[in-house]
């Protein structure tokens, strides 16, 4: 893993806006992440926090403003081995079974040219990544037989295996039990300590809280707070199901458009 320049700008979003179906989902967002930072992007469902990081990795290109990765305009960025993306875990597995080892090895593709077989270095990297997330003993099992939290760790390993400088994670802790959240946090602590930059989207930091350098809060498509450390309300946020108050929690997708005023807490 090549440590990036600690003072270099890794992610730079300037005036970023995303419009989906004529509806602004992200509006005039400025976000700068420097090398080695661990940034948590928090916000309610539909706040635009996932859209923000999808814009950063180019899956949802900005309609206004600009995104730069490692100082290069996102559209012209080609050095994808420096970026490790961990998408939201999809509920159902794909049609054909795939083993844990195969999924993690697919993260190694950025280091492989066409028609080149796996080398020893690739195999070592896969094994190391599986050890970091604590799944080395499950390598040959089909991914679909793992629990949700373990599947999420497989996706982390797939990003780890290419040794990127920037990790971008979309809701890594969603639907993950406490033990697996701790395993995720341990893996992220390892890469962060090695100098990698981490940007993750979440609405419950849980065991990740001690790692966070900066918390960015997104509400209604705008950044409304950008404070050092783990934001208290984001890290410890009880949601009881007691029913005597209208619960506006994140278990249910909010029905309002993100530009609408939502009655509950953000």
């Amino acid at each position, binding site marked *: 893993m090549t440590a990036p320049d600690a003072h270099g700008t890794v992610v730079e979003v300037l005036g970023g806006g995303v419009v989906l179906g004529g509806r602004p989902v992200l509006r005039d967002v400025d976000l700068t992440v420097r090398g080695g930072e661990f940034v948590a992007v928090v916000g309610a469902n539909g706040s635009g926090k996932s859209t923000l990081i999808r814009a950063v*990795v*180019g*899956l949802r290109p900005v309609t206004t403003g600009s995104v730069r990765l490692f100082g290069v305009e996102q559209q012209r960025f*080609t050095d*994808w081995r420096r*970026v490790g*993306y961990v*998408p939201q875990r*999809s509920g159902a597995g*794909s*049609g*054909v*079974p*795939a*083993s844990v*080892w*195969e*999924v993690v*090895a*697919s*993260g190694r*593709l*950025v280091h*492989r040219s*066409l*028609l080149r077989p796996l080398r020893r270095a690739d195999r070592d990297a896969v094994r190391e990544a599986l050890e970091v997330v604590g799944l080395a003993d499950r390598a*040959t*099992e*089909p991914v679909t*037989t*793992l*629990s*949700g*939290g*373990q599947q999420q760790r497989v*996706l982390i390993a*797939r990003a780890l295996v*290419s040794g990127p400088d920037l990790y*971008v994670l979309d*809701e890594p802790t*969603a*639907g*993950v*039990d*406490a*033990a*697996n959240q701790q395993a995720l946090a341990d893996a992220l602590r390892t890469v962060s300590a090695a100098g990698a930059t981490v940007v993750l989207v979440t*609405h*419950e930091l*849980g065991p990740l809280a001690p790692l966070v350098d900066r918390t960015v809060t997104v509400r209604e498509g705008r950044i409304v707070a950008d404070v050092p450390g783990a934001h208290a309300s984001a890290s*410890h946020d*009880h*949601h*009881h*199901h*007691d029913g*005597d108050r209208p619960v506006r929690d*994140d*278990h*249910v997708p909010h029905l309002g458009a993100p530009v609408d005023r939502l009655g509950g807490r953000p």
Partner: protein
Amino acid sequence: MIELLSYEFMQRALIAAVFVGLAAPLVGIYLVQRRLALMGDGIGHVAVTGVALGLATGTSPTWTAVVVAVLGAVAIELIREYGRTGGDVALALLFYGGLAGGVLVTGVAGESASRLQEFLFGAITTISVADVWFTMVLAAVIVVVAIGLLPQLFAVTHDPEFARVAGLRVRAYNVLVAVMAAVTVTVAMRTVGLLLVSALMIIPVATAQQLVGSFRRTVWLAMALGLGAALGGLLLAAYLSFSARVAPGPTIVLVALAGFLLTWPVGVWLRRRRALRVPFAAETLPVAAPAGAHAVDEHTHEHGDGCGHPAVEHGDHVDYLHDGHRHAPHGGHYDEH
């Protein structure tokens, strides 16, 4: 039986069956992975128009079918990518248009329906030397491309978003899969027929994924099963042809289906055995928990994988069923949900 194999037409048929049996499931794997199992069928229908155009214009139906099938496959891919309609609607439009166009053109050209039927259900025993070469070369190209690009194609079909952020040209690979499917359909046209070709692409994959748990093993097993079905079906048709007129297309497909049915119980047993190791057993929730309580009682253990308490996904987190209520691990304690 043995003297049957000494006939030259039978030898040509066997060679064609070997190549088609290996190539078709290989492409089928990527279609199943992309949840486009019916795409081969859609392309097959479009290729009917290609065959009819060949018959009508007096050119080789094989080549016109290749051209029209490739165009149809790319069209399906583009409609999926850019269209507002879902992929299944795009497929349906091409299904009906291709079949209707083919039957119409054949009729206008004054060709008999039985000539078209050779292509619809296969006529492997009438395959010419040129057709055998055509089958061998194209099938070999498909096998080389599909195996050579396996890591890339696996990544793109398994998780397109991750593949895109890894710098792979997802759209180009998707079109490549579509083109390979189109070529496979036309290669298999003389063997199993346009209306049954999709079966040889999909059934061996469906059978293989019952038994194995990795992508690579599915690839090899599906190819072996496809080969077995193609050869077995052809020999069965040849054997039956002593007493009745049997086309090899249907027997090949039925042999493949028989393989699937035989492995089904094995697959159920294997999945049940694996499921016992999954901590997230789907269990019905007990009656609602006592409301409002914030549990601070001491646990003798931490809930986690394999702690014995059934785990249920609850929105964004995991609860553990515990003495008739649900525990949500939270910080150093458990919330009651």
